[in-house]
């Protein structure tokens, strides 16, 4: 897999003086789902707007499949589809006309069969003759996706695709995204729902205050930064920890009924065997054991708070 989008040293300062991006480098692999995770105002939308040609970069360069997005904008943009964050739709056109318009705009000849398939896939077929202003918010969101798919892009940018979308629809959106990935479409989605990144992405990029803090394989990221914890649930609560267990820095909760041990899940020696031996030696009776791994959310919160 080679990189299909390459962002090099891109900075963006808006006319207001606000610097939205600080020399961003990013390589997006062909066929992957990359989640750009970041709090509001982190620069996610600015970054993808630059790649798609909606915002001019102040400096730096972007290539899409080797085509420079400024000098070879035709070739580059032909490959790109974008679903914006806001529900920016026309109002008076019909769904069919609007989707067909997008296809034409990207230089493709009319293909009613394809548009029919897309509308059916996105459950919009029975609304094909409805005017857009009569659609619900969820339908408008799907319409925006249909418009972006109408010209069969190889790379699809989804800017917060599930913001303000209910749970059922969100699941549906995830299914659409994974189906597209199966068809070989590279997908970049921005989100501040960690759950979304955790569920769908192959790689996760964390962006905060206009800087990309890291881009990592999701599993690797979770392993690399993932702290594990072991909860020891006791039969009888303990008032105070025995001297022999002091150096494990256990956390005592539930009135001394639960002792929590934190350790690095990837370490050669986790210390668990010794701990359990010492617990037994101290005369504490175990009722149950539980381990848990930090979620992407905890990792993310840690990273962003470190950065700021």
């Amino acid at each position, binding site marked *: 897999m080679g990189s299909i989008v390459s962002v090099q040293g891109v900075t963006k300062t808006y006319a207001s003086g606000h610097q939205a991006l600080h020399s961003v480098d990013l390589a997006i692999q062909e066929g992957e789902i990359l989640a750009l995770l970041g709090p509001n105002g982190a620069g996610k939308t600015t970054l993808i707007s630059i790649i798609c040609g909606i915002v001019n970069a102040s400096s730096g360069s972007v290539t899409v499949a080797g085509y420079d997005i400024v000098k070879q904008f035709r070739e580059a943009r032909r490959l790109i589809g974008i679903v*914006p964050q806001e529900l*920016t739709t026309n109002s008076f056109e019909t769904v069919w006309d609007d989707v067909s318009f997008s296809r034409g705009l990207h230089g493709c000849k009319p293909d009613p069969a394809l548009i029919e398939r897309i509308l059916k896939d996105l459950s919009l077929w029975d609304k094909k003759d409805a005017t857009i202003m009569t659609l619900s918010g969820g339908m408008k969101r799907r319409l925006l996706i249909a418009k972006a798919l109408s010209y069969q892009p190889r790379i699809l940018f989804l800017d917060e695709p599930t913001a303000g979308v209910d749970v059922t629809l969100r699941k549906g959106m995830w299914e659409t995204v994974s189906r597209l990935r199966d068809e070989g479409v590279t997908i970049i989605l921005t989100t501040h729902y960690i759950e979304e990144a955790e569920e769908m992405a192959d790689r996760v990029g964390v962006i905060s205050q206009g800087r990309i803090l890291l881009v990592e394989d999701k599993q690797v990221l979770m392993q690399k930064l993932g702290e594990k914890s072991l909860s020891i649930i006791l039969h009888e609560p303990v008032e105070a920890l025995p001297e022999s267990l002091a150096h494990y820095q256990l956390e005592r909760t539930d009135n001394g009924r639960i002792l929590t041990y934190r350790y690095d899940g990837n370490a050669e020696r986790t210390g668990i065997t010794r701990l359990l031996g010492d617990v037994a030696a101290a005369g504490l009776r175990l009722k149950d054991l539980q381990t848990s791994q930090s979620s992407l959310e905890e990792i993310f919160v840690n990273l962003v708070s470190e950065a700021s």
Partner: protein
Amino acid sequence: MNWQAIKAIYFFEMNRTRRTILQSIISPVISTSLYFVVFGAAIGARIESVEGISYAAFIVPGLIMLSLLTQSVTNAAFGIYFPKFTGTIYEILSAPVSPWEVVLGYVGAAASKSLIIGLIILATANLFVPLEIAHPLWMMTFLVLTCISFALLGFIIGIWADNFEKLQLVPLLIITPMVFLGGSFYSISMLPPAWQTVTLFNPVVYLISGFRWSFFGLADVHVGWSVLAIAVFLVACMVAIHKIFSSGYQLKP
């Protein structure tokens, strides 16, 4: 050239016209008919003739220009302003289309629409007053060039405007007075000499004069000046649009 895109934008815009046919086509026809009733029949009956032409016939080219100019400007301005206002402009900006293809789509549609309106008004006028066109080819040339150049101006206004008020400002406060004072309803020679000179600074005078020449073979200024004026205006608009696109002004932050 991305012809599919030009076609898509053009028909998208023409569809808008079709949907708003009452406002787009019928209202200019009605207002022109009213001008004929008031100026042609009621007042015109008391004016003998202007330079040997019946007053009702004399005002036809000016009336067509009045509608043509305001319609071209308003249509093109609205066409590009609306996507900016709703945010759907993102699609145009991220599509594989060059700026001039966008212009061709929007301006082409706006110009076609006002050309249609111009021809409808001409046909309506013909019902009120018999018309003979001395130079039909020149008439069409003036018609088409005016539609295109003022649609270009409208496109610029649509990009410049960041609210609805600005969108209306230029057509209402600049175009309409310029057309009224540009000899739509009178010959420049009817003015006192000092005002005749002042009027020559109004570019619309050249348009109306040239257009009237194509109908009746007589003009306030030489027809060569009219052709030159419209050509200069056309080029000026194109240069302005080129500058807008190369700087990203009001389109790309």
